[in-house]
């Protein structure tokens, strides 16, 4: 009987097809498949990079060749064939536009299908959107306003050309090229990404936003993001993405690096909705991302918020190195897995400075045959006097064929530290669903509401503009609209 109800819920959810699945037909220039030094040289040349970048890429490539793909995560997938991937795809038409009118109408249509028309976004939210469509930035808005404040927000390719000193200084300063297998690969072949620099004492007047989109079939995506918040500055950065439906697996191995100086604060929010594969687990994006920030100066703060609903396989641990004294690290995460999706995600909080504080709130929701794991490390080093961590990991199961796992690692080398960890696992009960049914909500709405309530602590952390999209993604219609 309880099972019957669960099955209904399970079926209704499992039968949902990916709604953002479509392919935009834009002419693109694509490299032939395969990876070798020659490809990297051509890539660097194509992008007009200075010598230091080519050297950086080649060094990373050589490191990568010596490394092995790790397999410690609770994930099962077919290892990508790196020679079967094309490492460069760029829209053939003009790469930059001054106004939306000049943008390929197909591209605009794509965004309209996603419900994120650029026009409206610009007007509504005052968001500067740096659209990355298959590796090359085609549109950057609000440059001028930002320029007045001395803020640099552009594609990383442009930053490499225009601000080589900043890039050379900070690139790979948080995630070294040999940090891990995928970070090394990314360092060798990254195609594009975003760069932001907030000068001393400047509070960025708008949310900086990048919408990623994987568009070219069989193109690996290797985005590179570098954010530097100089002393006393503040920035809120939004990253969001959806991908069109595809049959082949697509690899996404991005690297995000954030440097937070003294008294500065960075808020980094992600909504991730890449194609998760079909009901039987065929296709879908592999999301192997390295995200790391350093609270370099005293009293600095870095806050990660993520809503992960997409990808077939997610392998991701946004981390914070709390180096400055009194620095603060936060991690808020909602990860939803359905059908045959697998997610192994969490965070690392590395306490080095004195009086450093970290908070981890992780909400995992599993449906269908999916597996959802939280993996987190809290490390308190010997010098981190009076450091504190609070972790809370809650799992919600819908149906009886999915799994939730929690792997908290705690290493404390300082006796004055206080580390707390709480974990719960619960199921959506048929009593809850029936209660909602009795008030007029169908089962899908009921589950949405319950899931939304479960994830509320995290959703509340998202900036307004993003919260809406996140709720849409969670198929939630109501929470937050009133009261």
């Amino acid at each position, binding site marked *: 009987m309880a099972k019957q109800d669960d099955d209904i819920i399970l079926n209704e959810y499992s039968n949902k097809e990916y709604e953002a699945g479509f392919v935009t037909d834009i002419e693109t220039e694509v490299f032939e498949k395969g990876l070798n030094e020659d490809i990297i040289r051509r890539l660097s040349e194509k992008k007009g990079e200075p010598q230091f970048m080519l050297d950086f890429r080649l060094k990373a490539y050589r490191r990568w060749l010596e490394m092995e793909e790790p397999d410690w995560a609770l994930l099962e997938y077919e290892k990508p064939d790196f020679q079967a991937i094309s490492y460069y795809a760029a829209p053939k038409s003009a790469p930059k536009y001054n106004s939306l009118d000049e943008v390929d109408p197909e591209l605009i249509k794509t965004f309209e299908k996603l419900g994120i028309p650029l026009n409206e976004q610009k007007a509504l939210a005052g968001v500067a959107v740096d659209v990355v469509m298959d590796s090359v930035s085609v549109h950057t808005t609000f440059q001028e306003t930002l320029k007045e404040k001395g803020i640099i927000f552009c594609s990383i390719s442009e930053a490499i050309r225009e601000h080589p000193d900043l890039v050379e200084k900070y690139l790979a300063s948080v995630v070294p090229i040999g940090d891990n297998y995928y970070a090394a690969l990314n360092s060798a072949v990254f195609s594009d990404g975003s760069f932001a620099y907030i000068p001393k004492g400047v509070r960025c007047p708008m949310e900086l936003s990048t919408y990623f989109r994987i568009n070219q079939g069989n193109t690996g995506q290797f985005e590179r993001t570098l954010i530097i918040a100089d002393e006393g500055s503040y920035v809120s950065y939004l990253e969001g993405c959806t991908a069109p439906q595809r049959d082949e697996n697509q690899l996404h191995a991005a690297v995000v690096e954030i440097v937070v100086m003294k008294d500065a604060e960075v808020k980094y929010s992600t909504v991730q909705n890449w194609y998760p594969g079909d009901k039987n687990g065929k296709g879908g994006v592999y999301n192997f991302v390295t995200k790391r920030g350093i609270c370099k100066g005293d009293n600095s703060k870095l806050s990660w918020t993520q809503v992960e609903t997409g990808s077939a396989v997610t392998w991701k641990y946004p981390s914070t190195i709390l180096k400055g004294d009194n620095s603060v690290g936060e991690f808020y995460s909602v990860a939803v897995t359905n059908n045959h999706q697998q997610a192994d995600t969490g965070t690392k909080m590395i306490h080095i400075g004195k009086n450093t504080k970290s908070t981890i709130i992780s909400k995992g929701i599993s449906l269908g045959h999916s597996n959802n794991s939280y993996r987190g490390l809290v490390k308190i080093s010997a010098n981190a006097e009076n450091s504190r961590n609070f972790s809370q990991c809650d799992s919600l199961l819908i149906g009886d064929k999915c799994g939730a796992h929690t792997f908290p690692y705690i290493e404390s080398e300082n006796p004055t530290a206080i580390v707390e960890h709480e974990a719960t696992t619960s199921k959506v009960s048929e009593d809850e669903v029936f209660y909602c049914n009795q008030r007029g909500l169908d089962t899908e709405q009921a589950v949405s509401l319950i899931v939304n309530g479960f994830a509320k602590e995290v959703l509340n952390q998202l900036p307004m503009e993003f919260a809406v999209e996140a709720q849409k993604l969670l198929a939630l219609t109501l929470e937050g609209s*009133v009261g």
Partner: protein
Amino acid sequence: MSKTLIKIENLHASIEGKEILKGINLEIKEGEVHAIMGPNGSGKSTLSAVLAGRDIYEVTEGKVTFNGKNLLELAPEERSREGIFLAFQYPVEIKGVSIVNFMKAALEQHREHKGLEPLSPAEFLKLMKEKKELVEIDSKLTNRAVNEGFSGGEKKKNEVFQMAMLDPKLAILDETDSGLDIDALRIVANGVNKLRNEHNGFMVITHYQRLLDYIVPDVVHVLYDGRIVKTGGKELAFELEEKGYDWIKQEVEA
């Protein structure tokens, strides 16, 4: 002649093969309050759950007509939108979902069903305020998540508040008096009395006569072993209070 709200004919229902309801016949007209009394295990809560559409019970025989529709063919949410409200004996917690948002979601469904536009946030909040005053429920309560950390009395008040918001045609109160102290009982009963009108009906399920001092019924039914064995006016409740249920059992078994 007032219209029939609900007509239950020869209703049989079982759970896991065990028959609980063994042929219920009952008709409630607009403007009427019917009390269903009976000893523990007689099938009172089963009757309310079956009417609300709880699928752990299997209806094996009989017919229920509500608003001229075959109720048993409707999903639970459709029954709600048609105007059946069940005040639960044990309301569940829905963590993190505020009563405001919960009611807004529910009301939108009800309005859509009636072909009405959703209320604007301002209109909705105005309605909330009105209904809160009507059933004497505090904003402190309605700003919290649904039943999360509520006392027994608060949960029941919340049920009556939701009833007021959704304005049902037929409200079923499943032992709403259980676990209430006398003050909470009065507030709950007052709320119900204010909601009574010539167009709706109530089915008040209770074990004790106490609640019926406040919510005065037009008809009292005694349910025993899955059947209605006695029907009378409000004085029947007093008789039961005085004599207990044993004489009914003896009458039935004789």
